[in-house]
């Protein structure tokens, strides 16, 4: 800064710029604090489970999805055989199973409402 002392106008401008910048930074910081404080940490949020490695997490989520689809497809196929409504049972229950699988994944990832906790 000392090297710029001979150019007062430029120096002043730069000082003003820096003041404006720091004021903006402060405002932004305050706004961020407000946003943070308006969303207190949700105590009902599911505790992070023992997913220490990303691979374990991926395996867990994928089995949840696949399990839903398999159960839906299996039930649809059985209904088709018992009621003779092929292929409608399979089609409908495959889609419903996919939905159930997505619900499983969202629950496992903590995005959907978990089933109720220990408090009644």
């Amino acid at each position, binding site marked *: 800064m000392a090297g710029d002392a001979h150019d007062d106008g430029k120096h002043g401008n730069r000082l003003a710029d820096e003041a404006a910048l720091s004021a903006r930074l402060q405002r932004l910081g305050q706004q961020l604090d407000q946003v943070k404080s308006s969303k207190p940490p949700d105590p009902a949020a599911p505790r992070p*489970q*023992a997913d*220490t*490695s990303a691979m*374990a997490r991926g*395996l*867990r989520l994928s*089995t*949840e999805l*696949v*399990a*839903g689809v*398999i*159960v*839906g497809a299996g*039930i649809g196929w059985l209904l088709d055989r018992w009621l003779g409504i092929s292929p409608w049972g399979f089609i409908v*229950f495959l889609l*419903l*199973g996919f*939905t*159930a*699988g997505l*619900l*499983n994944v969202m*629950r496992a990832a903590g995005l959907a*409402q978990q*089933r*109720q*906790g*220990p*408090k*009644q």
Partner: protein
Amino acid sequence: MAADPIHQFEIQNYFPVFKIGATQIHFTNSALFMAVAVGLTAALLIGATSGRRLVPTRLQSLAEMSYELVANTLRNTAGEEAMRFFPLVLSLFMFILVSNVVGLIPYTFTVATHIIITAALALTVFFTVIIYGIWRNGWHFFKLFLPSGIPGWMAPILIVIELLSFLSRPISHSVRLFANMLAGHITLKLVAGFVVMMGSVGALGVFGAIAPLALTIALTALELLVAVLQAYVFTILTCIYLNDAIHPGH
């Protein structure tokens, strides 16, 4: 045979035990290592705590740690009332943990690499939840399938989806343990196989075998982590499902 990564999962009949109908039931290597897991667990829990010292020995504190881990998990997840299921949950945890860790020793057999075993364990939990849930809550148990605050016209679809989600639990519960153990052991065998294959090539091969050897050691450590972690994950999920049996309302 050494290069066949699937061979380690083969069931071998040791000697016939009894017959059910026309089916001969054999004592197999799977049964042997199940017995080993149960024996080691019993030796640890009964033997190590028989001294009942105030300042525990190493084995005693290991037994106490496993007890407290499972008891705390069950209490925090499903409440104080769930402690009546503590024997079931501790048995599941110790059986899976000990059989997984024993299976990491070369020339042993990992019980959880057969889906029939993990499925039997998961179905035990599944039917415990259903039977105890209906016995304790009656019709109230079926509120599990009806999320609260749902408009009436959506209820039929959502009940079916929740029912499918409930029925898919034993599948994801069992497949997760089974797939983790199976994949880990196949990877370990494949990478270890490279060491033998490269070592038989010559001097350059021996030098090249250093990398897979280091990877095998790293993978063994990872597999130890996975073995313990999957036993714990199976236990946590058991606790979450038991919680539904005790508190079915949404």
